[in-house]
């Protein structure tokens, strides 16, 4: 066994233990530890990615060297390693982008708590990505929920408490359903390890036994994870949670946490049930329909919003709709498109949150559109970054959103029944995206009328004043352009990774 094979496990453990470690450190040091941990894990994930790409096949890591079915397994393929790397990168940039807000919005005594939560969140995300055991996945889903809840409520005001409790309630509903689904699956197959379950499910599917329980289990798990990742119409918790928490939290929550669940769902589809069986079931049609509705309704809600943060949050609902729509297409290429959109949305949404915070900074902390007039001039970098993010969301060529749109529609064209609804929904949703994102872009480049709130509150912010945010924004922009301009290797990687899932 190569030493590199230990890295996935080590990265989980590292982040897990850096959590408790942070609790005895001061805020400043906790931050340093956290940054270091993320960087180290990123590097390790990169090594793993290199290794897996080199060998060309996935590897299984036995926890405590117990082989299945007794031991717990970690299973690492190209896609997992890449996801881990990507999540680390996004997390690092999101943390960087929200440095100043964290200092001002979080009580000094609770600074280090924040980093505990972030570390735990990273740990649970990594576990969700790597684990090959359904029950482990459940446990880490709960850990993920708790730490995410902590991230929301760390900025202590009424709004965040309410958002946190709503988030908790919805998440618990989701995880309850997930757990029940896992129990069903266990009772039918008698296994908890994904690969073993899949063998059994294949046998059952071939024999036709336990058809309904399997379907129910699949349905419960899908719905559970859909609730947790805020698929329309289970999105009611989302705008508050993203809209009022501190910037890094919003960025991380929107771009990573929900994506972790989606990734788990894809793993369940591929690894646990088997993609053909999933496609034969009706579940994907349901996901498809909700996905399409989400694409439209999320945007409609966003259009009505007058608060820039909440608007971005509602846009997440729409984007998650895209992802589920891709899954619902029920083809390999559809899933590739979805995974690509996971990446693209993660990169773009965190960029938007960070940029929006830059804009509000330049407008005296106000988040309403009328106060944001001219913010694009007061904080130039944030303005540019917001524009880039918006264009990507609208799906302009050159930016990442275009590629995922391209992939989605190219895949949809091959379908018989789902083609037209998909294409039309894509077009309509593009228009709606344009309506609210571009309206915002135009607003921030509209000079504030003299002697109004926006004019008096606003102050110019130079790039050097917020180094963390500036660096983060620049990196985000580069990342976005990279995804948009040289997507081919990444798509290739996703395809390879999905191959390895079989």
């Amino acid at each position, binding site marked *: 066994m190569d030493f590199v094979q230990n890295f996935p496990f080590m990265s989980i453990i590292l982040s897990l233990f850096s959590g408790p470690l942070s609790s005895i450190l001061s805020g400043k040091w906790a931050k340093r530890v956290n940054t270091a941990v993320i960087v180290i894990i990123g590097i390790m994930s990169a090594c793993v990615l290199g290794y897996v790409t080199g060998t060309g096949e996935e590897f299984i890591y036995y926890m405590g060297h117990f082989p299945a079915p007794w031991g717990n397994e970690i299973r690492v393929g190209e896609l997992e390693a890449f996801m881990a790397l990507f999540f680390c990168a996004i997390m690092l940039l999101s943390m960087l982008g929200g440095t100043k807000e964290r200092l001002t919005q979080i009580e000094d005594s609770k600074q280090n708590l924040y980093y505990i939560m972030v570390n735990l969140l990273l740990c649970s995300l990594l576990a969700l990505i790597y684990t090959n055991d359904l029950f482990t996945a459940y446990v880490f889903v709960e850990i993920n929920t708790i730490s995410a809840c902590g991230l929301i409520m760390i900025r202590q005001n009424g709004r965040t408490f309410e958002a946190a409790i709503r988030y908790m309630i919805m998440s618990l509903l989701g995880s309850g359903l997930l757990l029940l689904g896992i129990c069903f699956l266990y009772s039918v197959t008698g296994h908890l390890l994904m690969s073993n379950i899949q063998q059994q499910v294949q046998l059952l599917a071939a024999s036709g036994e336990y058809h309904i329980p399997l379907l129910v289990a699949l349905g419960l798990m899908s719905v559970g994870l859909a609730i947790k990742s805020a698929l329309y119409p289970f999105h009611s918790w989302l705008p508050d949670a993203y809209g009022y928490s501190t910037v890094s939290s919003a960025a991380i929550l929107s771009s990573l946490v929900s994506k972790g669940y989606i990734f788990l769902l894809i793993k369940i589809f591929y690894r646990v049930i088997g993609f053909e069986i999933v496609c034969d079931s009706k579940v994907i049609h349901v996901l498809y329909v909700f996905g399409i509705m989400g694409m439209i309704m999320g945007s409609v809600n966003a259009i009505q919003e007058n608060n820039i943060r909440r608007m971005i949050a509602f846009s997440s609902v729409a984007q998650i709709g895209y992802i589920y729509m891709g899954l619902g297409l029920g083809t390999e290429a559809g899933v590739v498109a979805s995974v690509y959109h996971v990446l693209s949305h993660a990169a773009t949404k965190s960029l938007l949150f960070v940029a929006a915070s830059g804009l509000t900074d330049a407008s005296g902390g106000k988040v309403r559109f009328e106060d944001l007039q001219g913010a694009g001039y007061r904080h130039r970098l944030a303005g540019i970054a917001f524009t880039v993010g918006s264009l990507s969301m609208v799906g302009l060529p050159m930016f990442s959103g275009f*590629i995922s749109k391209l992939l989605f529609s190219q895949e949809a064209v091959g379908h018989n029944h789902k083609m037209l609804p998909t294409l039309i929904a894509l077009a309509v949703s593009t228009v709606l995206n344009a309506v609210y994102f571009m309206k915002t872009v135009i607003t921030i480049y*509209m000079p504030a009328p003299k002697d109004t709130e926006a004019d008096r509150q606003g102050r110019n912010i130079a790039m050097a004043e917020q180094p963390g945010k500036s660096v983060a924004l620049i990196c985000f922009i580069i990342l976005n352009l990279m995804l948009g301009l040289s997507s081919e290797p990444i798509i290739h990687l996703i395809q390879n990774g999905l191959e390895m899932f079989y």
Partner: protein
Amino acid sequence: MCVFIEICALVNSMLVFLLLRNPPAETLTVFRFTGNLSVTFRIDGMGSLFAGMAAFLWPLALLYSFEYMKHEQNEKSFFLFYVITYGITLGIALAENILTMYFFFEMLSMVTLPLIMHSRTREAILASRSYLYYMLGGAAFAFIGMIFILTYGTTSSFVMGGVLDPGKIGDKTNLLLFIYVLCFCGFSVKTAMFPFSSWLPKAGVAPTPVTALLHAVAVVNTGAFAAMRVTYFSFGTELLRGTWAQNVVMTLVIITIVYGCSRALKETHIKRRLAWSTVGNLSYILFGVVLMTPLGLAGGMAHMLFHSFMKICSFFCAGAVIYQTGRNYVHELNGFGWKMPKVFVCFTVTAFALTGVPGLCGFVSKWNLCKAAVASENPLAYAGVAALMISALLTAIYMLTIVVRAFFPGRDFDCETISDVRDPNWLMILPLVVFVIVMFCFGLHSGPVIRFLQGN
């Protein structure tokens, strides 16, 4: 700064003309999006016409804008985007495949946005918003068409006669026609086809060089150009001719022709009137496109070329008036013909050309369009010919009333009230004169151009 920009534009135009004189046979791939989707350039007949047109107009328009922009602010950002637009227009003209075209098509919408909001007034903001919504919405539907071409075509490149693979289509012809209609409408949003035309008059709040060059020529023509590419080079006319899809788009186009001109008639704001006129005239081009015959394409292309000169010239005249006097409405122009003789003589010639007086270029393209329509033996096309005639009459009414008003203000008009009005300086006059000369040249000697287009 002005000299630098002008030199850059001139050099670029020189390069373009050099390139068009010795067109390289091979294609140039800049980079790849995914798999076989790449940004690739190639020069063919249609593209070279469009590129040549842009290369000719831009330096002249820049010359005009140097003077014009003196009374607007933020010259630098204006020229920045103005020059970028030049490049993007060339990109569309020389695009080798549908993806490249779409790429630049979207870029164009974005880059021209700051130009519309240039004045940053509330009106400009609202105009730019509606502009953007229309553009992106159109592009979203055009996108669907593009995807279909990519999936059902043998290649994504533009090949005369279409690239659709009959084997892949099978029994999905009707679906494909539906997609064609969506895609055509999508691209035609940029051409301000009815019912997507209201953005164009609103966009008239932009500085005149923008309205003139972009919203009468470059941007809107790219819409027509894209529609041509899609119709003739991607979907292929074989598939479309005689189907309900052709009838639908042709009906829309014919409605637009009459609608645009009628709205122009009602409008009293000069620039908006010209913008509505553009709406009508652009649909002439589209009419040529939807005839789906090579003759129709040639007619459409001819009108695209000629209309550019006519409309840019008329807008520049209107801009000269606004620049010199700040007057915006038709009824304020009484007697201006004698105070700004150079501008108004040019305007008169342009008005005649737009109306379709023989001997000027507007007649040639109109003739070719009508000829193609009659040759297509499609009853709806006959209605189109009638619409062209009606629109010509309406054009005469809304253009010539301005001319008559300017030269014959009525006997009781007091010339003293406009005694301080005079022609602008040579920077603004030179482009006008060049355009007028071009109009005469094409009008009297159109043979080579038409032959070139028909040989396409």
